[in-house]
């Protein structure tokens, strides 16, 4: 890489020489001044040779601004005091160059390895399900997956590939290149984006290029951008959003903010900022931290610049508040709902994750539950064969099996030793129950139908074992304060069956008094003891096959006592053995398909995503904790070649990560130092420099804190790639600090020599980064073949667990 870099420089120089003539009239055009309507200082080159002006100026605004520009240009210029490079460099070339290298690195061997890498397993599968329009459930919002799916669609993906396990090869039907191009492109666009962000924060183009350089040559960002993963997409949206918000701030803070208000650009930056930030949120919920950062910046400006501007009338202030409220609350909500609208209107077919949703939701999907329930009888009658689904929270069905409660529990309490009744999370033959009137013995359903209505008493017969659902005054296995529910077995211990239940339909207003399959929400109240059949949320130990506990609960009025009939058939045959056979072959009364509106679906999905899904990968081998991210203690193995030790391992460029951590500490110490000194009215640096330093803190340090601190308060399993959004801000901070340190050097040492030293140190540092990047490059692309020594050679830290499975 080092060679190409030098070559690029040369090319750069030559090119610039050619362009010199064109560019000279306006040598230090700064992108932030574009279209500002103000003239750029013209005599810059002469000024540059002098020592920086250190005295504080109390001149009017215009000259102050001029000086600031001069200052920053000076910094950039002196950094670049290499003879030929000095004046000739045009700002536009740098980001183009960086972008070019980014595209080259991100797109290099993009379709290799041609097999599933890490979470492509999930995202690829979801993209496939989009092609098939099959519903799936994921706890992250869908935008990122939609983009992947779109790329897949354009690439001709039919969704026929089965994503079974990490490492299995793609076949020709999967447009690997097209799908991986989404993260690769967004990952490459990050680099010009950060370049512009740094310019927007008033840093020189060299610093901006340095930030781009850090992003470009970080192995973790490269690895992440090379496969179908969400982080590059979320980072792209987040950084675009931040950039737009910064542009918006620049308008707010410019001299004639009034004139800019409500202008097209004003609206443009504001709205695009909030839309981009919302998009980040729509890729993964962690994007909310970027959104909050944007909100904090805009809110802070509102507080200071609008509210604190006493020349504005109350009405004007109110108008500004409403505009911002619209941009930052209404628009995001619309975008968010829009993304889900696409999601829900696209995915109309039933699929593998249906059971996470309610019966009605499933019934609204093509071919899923609807294929089972289509045409099944609507009204529950004496002789109905039903499955009873726990209607709220995690899905499970009332279940029993031929096993009894243990005589004694581990805590030495006794049980009734009758047949277990549980709530089982899978569909199973043992979930069938037959509804029966207490006074009737025949079970076959015949006309006229004996409908069951609200308030009537029934018995429930377990389909396979033929025992009745029973409850009695015995403590439940896992919740001793509740009552045990069993299938009655007569042990001859003078414990009579108490197996009559009263049906209470909770949504009678909508459905009516008659018990309907699917739609009626019922409570079963035990007639003898007035307890309700309830799901307790606890799990039974091994003897209960770790199924969920079912109890009789005194507290009737709670969601855990509500069940609904999901599958439903009429009993046709009196003979017990024939009943099984009969289940398949009855002809059913047709039922109208369930139609569920978008909003109902949307809210149900929201609730399930936000509150119910907390599947936790415990004891994953590559988990890490937030503290470890600071020093890169652990990576994540993404993929390993079946033939050699070639592998993909998510690992940052350790040189960058360590310097960024040090830079973070240095920035914080400097900040504390300046604050303490200023408290004593000692101003060590120029006001412009301080303002720049402070703004950096407001945007970058705050951004870092927002994206990092919350991880200390979550209890789900964490991986290294969760750190990347925070890392992005940290890298920017690192670049910013380099310029600030350079400024400090010039402030302290008058001699040119030290400036040179600084540049030299930075260049050395950069070449070090390049070397480390190059060393770990095979782990990004999975280049091989590699033998064990080559892999172990990369193991700089004891805690990095590379996979060595071949000699």
């Amino acid at each position, binding site marked *: 890489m080092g060679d190409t870099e030098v070559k690029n420089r040369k090319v750069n120089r030559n090119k610039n020489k050619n362009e010199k003539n064109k560019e000279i009239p306006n040598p230090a055009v700064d992108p932030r001044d574009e279209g500002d309507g103000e003239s750029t200082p013209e005599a810059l080159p002469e000024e540059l040779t002098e020592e920086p002006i250190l005295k504080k100026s109390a001149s009017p605004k215009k000259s102050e601004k001029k000086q600031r520009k001069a200052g920053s240009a000076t910094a950039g210029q002196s950094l670049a005091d290499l003879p030929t490079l000095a004046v000739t460099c045009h700002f536009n070339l740098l980001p183009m160059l960086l972008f070019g290298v980014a595209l080259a690195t991100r797109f290099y061997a993009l379709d290799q390895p041609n097999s599933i890498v890490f979470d492509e397993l999930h995202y690829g599968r979801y993209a496939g399900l989009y092609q098939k329009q099959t519903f799936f459930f994921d706890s992250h919002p869908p935008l990122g997956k939609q983009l992947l799916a779109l790329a897949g669609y354009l690439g001709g993906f039919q969704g026929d590939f089965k994503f079974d396990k990490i490492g299995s090869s793609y076949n020709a039907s999967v447009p690997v290149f097209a799908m991986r191009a989404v993260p690769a492109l967004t990952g490459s666009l990050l680099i010009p984006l950060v370049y512009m962000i740094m310019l927007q924060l008033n840093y020189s183009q060299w610093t901006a290029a340095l930030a781009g350089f850090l992003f470009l040559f970080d192995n973790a960002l490269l690895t992440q951008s090379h496969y179908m993963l969400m982080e590059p997409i979320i980072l792209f949206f987040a950084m675009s959003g931040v950039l737009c918000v910064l542009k918006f701030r620049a308008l707010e803070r410019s001299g004639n903010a009034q004139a800019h208000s409500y202008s097209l650009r004003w609206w443009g930056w504001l709205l695009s900022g909030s839309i981009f930030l919302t998009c980040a949120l729509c890729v993964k919920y962690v994007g909310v931290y970027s959104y909050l950062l944007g909100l904090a910046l805009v809110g802070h400006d509102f*507080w200071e610049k609008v*509210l*604190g501007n*006493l020349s504005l009338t109350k009405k004007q*202030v109110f108008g500004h508040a409403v505009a911002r409220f619209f941009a930052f609350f209404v628009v995001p909500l619309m975008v968010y709902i829009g993304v889900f609208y696409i999601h829900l209107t696209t995915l109309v077919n039933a699929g593998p994750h249906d059971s996470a949703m309610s019966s009605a939701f499933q019934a609204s999907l093509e071919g899923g539950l609807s294929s089972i329930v289509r045409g099944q009888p609507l009204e529950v009658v004496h002789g109905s064969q039903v499955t009873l689904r726990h209607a709220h929270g995690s899905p499970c069905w009332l279940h029993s099996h031929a096993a009894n409660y243990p005589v004694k529990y581990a805590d030495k309490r006794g049980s009734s030793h009758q047949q277990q009744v549980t709530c089982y999370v899978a569909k199973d033959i043992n979930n069938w129950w037959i509804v029966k009137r207490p006074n009737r013995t025949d079970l076959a359903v015949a006309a006229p139908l004996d409908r069951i209505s609200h308030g009537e008493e029934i018995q429930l017969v377990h389909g396979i074992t033929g025992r009745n659902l029973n409850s009695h005054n015995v403590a439940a296995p*896992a919740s001793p*304060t509740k009552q045990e529910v069993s299938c009655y077995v007569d042990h001859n211990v003078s414990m009579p069956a108490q197996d009559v239940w009263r049906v209470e339909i909770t949504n009678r207003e909508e459905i009516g008094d008659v018990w309907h399959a699917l739609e009626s929400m019922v409570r079963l109240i035990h007639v003898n003891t*007035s307890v309700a059949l309830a799901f307790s*949320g*606890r*799990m*039974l*130990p*091994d003897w209960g096959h770790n199924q969920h506990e079912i109890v009789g609960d005194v*507290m009737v*009025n*709670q969601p855990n006592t509500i069940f609904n009939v999901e599958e439903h058939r009429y009993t046709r045959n009196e003979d017990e053995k024939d009943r099984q056979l009969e289940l398949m072959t009855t002809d059913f009364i047709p039922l109208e398909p369930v139609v569920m509106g978008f909003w109902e679906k949307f809210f149900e999905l929201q609730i399930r995503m936000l509150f119910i899904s907390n599947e936790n990968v415990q*004891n994953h*081998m590559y988990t890490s904790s937030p503290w470890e991210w600071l020093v890169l203690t652990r990576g994540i193995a993404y993929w390993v070649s079946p033939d050699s030790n070639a592998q993909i391992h998510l690992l940052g460029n350790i040189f960058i990560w360590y310097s960024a951590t040090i830079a973070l500490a240095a920035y914080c110490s400097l900040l504390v130092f300046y604050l*303490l000194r200023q*408290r*004593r*009215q000692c101003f060590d640096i120029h006001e412009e420099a301080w303002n720049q330093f402070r703004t950096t803190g407001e945007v970058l340090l705050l951004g870092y804190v927002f994206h990092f601190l919350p991880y*200390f*308060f*979550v*209890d789900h399993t964490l991986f290294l790639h969760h750190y990347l959004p925070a890392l992005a801000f940290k890298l920017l901070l690192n670049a910013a600090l380099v310029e600030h340190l350079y400024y400090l050097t010039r402030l302290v040492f008058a001699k040119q020599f030290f400036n040179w030293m600084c540049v030299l140190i930075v260049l050395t540092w950069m070449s070090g980064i390049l070397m480390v990047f190059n060393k770990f490059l095979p782990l990004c692309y999975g280049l091989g073949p590699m033998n064990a020594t080559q892999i172990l050679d990369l193991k700089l830290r004891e805690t990095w*667990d590379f996979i060595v499975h071949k000699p």
Partner: protein
Amino acid sequence: MTAPTLICSKNQENGLNIKKMKNSDSIGFKLLDQFRDGRNDKIWWRVFALLMIATVATRFYKLDQPDHVCWDEAHFGKYANFYINRTFFFDVHPPLGKMLIGLFGYLDGYNGSFHFDKPGDKFEEHQYMGMRIGCAVMGALLVPLSFLTVWEMTFSLPAATFGGLLILLDHGMLTLNRFILLDPPMLFFISAAIYSMVKFHNQRHRPFSLPWWSWLSSIGVMLSCSVAVKFVGIFVVIFVGCRTIADLWEILGDLSRPVSYTVKHFMARAICLIAMPTLLYMGIFYIHLAVLSNSGPGDGFYSSAFQVGLKGNYLHDGSTPRQVAYGALLTLKNAVTSGAYLHSHDHLYPEEIGGSQQQITTYAHKDDNNNWHVKRHNKLAPSWNSTRPIDFVRNGDLLRLEHFATGRNLHAHRSLAPITIKQFQVTGYGLDGVGDNNDIWRLEIEDGEEGQILETMLHRFRLIHYNLGCALTCTKKKLPAWGFEQDEVTCNPNRRDPNAIWNIEENIYPRLPNVSFRAYEKNFFQRFIESHVVLINGNSALKPKEGEATSKPWMWPINLRGQFFSGGQLQVYLLGNPIIWWGNLVFMVFYLILWVSVGVRTKRRITVTQREIMLQERALSACGWLWLGWLLHYLPFWGMSRVLYFHHYFPALLFSSMMSGILLDYVIESIPLSLPKNSFNASYAAILSATLLILFYRQVFFHWIFYLFSPLVYGLVRYADTNSTMHHLHWLSTWEF
């Protein structure tokens, strides 16, 4: 306690402002005027006395009921026993709270004879009241402390009264503070620390005076005590730290003083808030370790060298031979801090994780299943009665270890370990000591010479598997339920792993003389540090058990679900007073709104009356700190992966209740101000009297609500029918009483 007049006169500006404000609006009733004014000594003391009487009445009423062990009394009572009997034990909390409970019991003449086996056991003739009274006294002191804290923060008697009342009338506080638990001392120390802090803050105009120093040291003492009761005390340390930084920031900004003045202030705080508390904290541990000088059930959690110092332990008493010989019965202890004993039991690894051989784990409790018989690899173990010369175990020997209870050999083979799948599985294999080649281990004493005899405790060694070349290691990962949540043991190809080092702790071999290892006893600092490592490991290992219902932090402030303290005939159910808890939430939101609106008004330079500014300043600055305190005591629980309980919210409740008191006063005072000016005179009296009526009714209301729920605290007789009075109190379906 300093008399209120004294404080006011010392605090010039505050006093003056209050005076100005109060004089402007007299309402006519002399008593109420004086109450609102609060500077009248007589009234102040009367209110205080009333509050104290009510406190004593509620806290000590039926304190002996229920006369059986309630909830965690089973733990803390037991620990008190250990202190009284001076027996060493292990608990996840630091010692001060338990020491205090032990002390209360001791003063009452309790002799540690009751076993506290499980909740529900009757105390019968045992002296348990001393401990209950001790805890109740500490809990009762919360009321005057909150009263005084609010007083010091605002110098408003109504606010202080409300603050005190809200603590007084909360059932949760009451229930929690009546039993033998760690919470009463902890809450006491926390609120004492806060009180000292505001008191110290009010001394800021006469720095380095005697009261200044004494309140500063008082903060330090209370801080170290709260940490020494439970580690959550660390949050109040952070709280005080924030306040201290803010104070120092103020001092630094005073340009009339040199920087050295700030440094002086900083040094004073460093001494009183860092150095002294640290010493005190260590002192508490010193007492803890000095008192618990007898061997007990907690020994096994600590290293062998730690145990030497415990009377009755075989290492202390010299009931263990120094050298290890073949045929001896050994226990092996993992030599890292908080390492446990090599253990096996008559249970197999589950089928699905490779081979149904017997489990090998580590286990921290002392148990017969920790005993291993050491044999040469090719011989049977010599009998203890044999007369042949003693065959010592030497460095480099090949040996087998036979599990004494089950007769299986310690065995490793080329299968994946159950959790750390990069390492090899270790099992128990063979029958009555007959196994195969994979049972052979080589002894490698750390820094040992070839042929050196292995010595009990003193030598740290590795066991290297003869065939695989891996080292016997405890990975410190918990096995799932099938392994009884003991720690996993593997054979680790990385032989340098620090967890692969073991030592011999118990060594039974009658043919060798027993010696004592007292010369190798650890000194206090080593014991202090080891105690902490063990405590912290123990704390983070408190994970919710599978299927166990855990309380989630979001449920706490809304008082969603309480906690059973006692079942049976006399139920006690920990539940907050819903009116207070929900009111607290309302006031917290109200504070935020107030804060923003005041901010906007300041920013827009909207002028308000002097009195309003005065009121706002009083309420806002005090409430800001209390809000921060609440946040610091509540938010961290969101990030904790250990098992959480409802009662963890109570320190935060202290803050939010005090804040509600202040804001209630603010609301009552500022309602008349918000009326238009022209109708001011006419409506003023009406508004005030209405306010006072509300105020009065509110008190009545509090009492009524308090009365309604009081059976929860004092124990309610389990109701049989749904018509019982308690049935109407099921305001939320999640309340389980």
